[in-house]
């Protein structure tokens, strides 16, 4: 056990800084930049609908959402709102907007493996995953092979014993002060801590950091929501029925109520 109150002194070769700390940092930044551009290259833009019925299916789904979202500010009168609501709910329920017509309801959703469009979406996701996994594996093994077991850095502040696991991966010394950081840990710190550097280099919406990538994985709607409401493998009929339900419980209100009073009082 290290004595309390005494500082451990380790003589470090200054070459450690030049040949380990710096290379790891630079390599991590460069891989981040590379990953960003690789992701951009591999990205396929969301495919636009290819036939009018498909466009109709997508756009009528958004139409319901638009009616719900913009109802107050567009100032529809109760009567014209009721007409639209009835029309949409009725057609949603009958499945008139479906790509294949109302007869195609109730059929099992096509196997996503056989649908080329869905297949493409999955390939896109795979590519994204690959761009994340491969460099990570390579660099991890590279660091392990060349730089394992070095103590390269001393933090200027004391830490509790719990941080030992985080900061001294690959160095199995029980007595070493927590402030010493091993090369492998430096790699991990770079892996998770370079986000702000990437924002500085590549701008706000970069694909370099892996933390953001994982967040995008956890929330696919956020990442792909731009491409339209249709997700591969989802049954549009179910989405229509859900939208009909949403419309049914919608409460009417209107921004035109009292607009004259607002106008007069603002003068």
């Amino acid at each position, binding site marked *: 056990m290290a004595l309390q109150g005494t500082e451990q002194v380790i003589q470090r070769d200054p070459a450690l800084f030049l040949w380990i700390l710096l290379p790891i940092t630079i390599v991590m930044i460069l891989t981040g930049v590379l990953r960003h551009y690789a992701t951009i290259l591999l990205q396929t833009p969301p495919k636009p609908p290819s*036939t009018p*019925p498909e466009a*109709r299916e997508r756009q009528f789904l958004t139409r319901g959402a638009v009616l719900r979202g913009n109802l107050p500010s*567009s100032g529809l009168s109760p009567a014209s709102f009721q007409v639209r609501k009835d029309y949409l709910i009725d057609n949603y329920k009958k499945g008139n907007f479906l790509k294949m017509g109302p007869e195609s309801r109730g059929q099992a959703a096509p196997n996503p493996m056989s649908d080329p469009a869905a297949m493409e979406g999955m390939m896109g996701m795979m590519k994204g995953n690959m761009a994340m996994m491969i460099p990570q594996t390579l660099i991890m093994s590279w660091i392990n092979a060349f730089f394992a077991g070095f103590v390269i850095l001393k933090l200027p502040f004391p830490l509790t014993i719990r941080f030992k696991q985080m900061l001294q991966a690959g160095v199995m010394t029980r007595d070493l002060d927590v402030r010493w950081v091993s090369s492998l840990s430096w790699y991990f710190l770079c892996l998770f801590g370079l986000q702000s550097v990437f924002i500085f280099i590549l701008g706000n919406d970069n694909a370099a950091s892996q933390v953001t990538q994982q967040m995008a994985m956890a929330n696919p709607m956020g990442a792909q929501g731009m491409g339209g409401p249709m997700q591969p493998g989802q049954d549009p009929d179910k989405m229509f029925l859900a939208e009909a339900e949403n419309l049914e419980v919608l409460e009417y209100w209107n921004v*035109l109520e009292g607009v004259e009073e607002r*106008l007069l009082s603002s*003068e």
Partner: protein
Amino acid sequence: MSTQIQYYNHDDPATAMNLSQKASSLLSKSSLKRKSQVVSIVSAIEEPSEWAELEQVFLACLRTGDDESAHLCLERITTRFGAANHRIMGLRGLYQEAEAKTEEDLRRILQGYNQIVKEDPMNIPIHKRRTALIRSIGMPGDALECLVQFLASFPSDTEAWCELSDLYQQQGLNQQAIFCMEEALLLAPNAWNLHARLGELNYLASQSAQEGIATNEKYLTEAVHRFARSVELCQDYLRGYYGLKLATDKLSSLPQSKSTNGLASETLRRLNTTAVAKLKHIVKQSSSTASGPRKAELIAAQALLDQSGS
């Protein structure tokens, strides 16, 4: 009123003139020239806004009759984006229509559009050009049908809804026009010009309705609401105040009805005075600097003020 679907805002002629005079300087710009693959890697990243500007210049050249520059602009855009791009096809169609000398030419272009739409029903710009062309050669009924079909597949196209509303209004079908304008407003709920337009449509409906005073009052109340909303969204909107004054005048001249949802006469009076004051203010402020359509609007506003003797 222009019969073509506009790709950009109503510009007054002076702005279009200025824009089209930029054509030669813009065309000589190196960043918009065609580059070989190698050069494009090392040269600076191209700006999307420059291409958008070139498109605007192209349209302005067509408006001002400078077909030569327009052709050059179109060529430049086409070499960059390819002739199969939907938007480019739309622009090319526009250019051909401008070039057309006779009715016969126009019909041939229309045939071409029909062919394209049949082969690729997803080509939205060509759909729109086709509708506009059908309308401009004097077949509003066909244009209506065309638009209705288009909107059955693409119901979230604000531009098409506005155009349809305009067509219906021209045919005297105010109810339908109002419905279409409401659809457009659902898609763009904060567009004050659409609110004002809907107010105008309601006002027109009230003037032509034969169903009696109650209906008239309903339309007029709605019109007042809409105009009030539009000037709430845009504080110095001349058209909104103009409509507000007209509609409040008409509504207060109607015999008092017992309906409870109408506006109180006190509110109407105050709205009217506000509108008049605002109109006077706008006319006084900008009549010296305005030109083109803006000038015409100001003159109309002045005439309205004179007419009501205030």
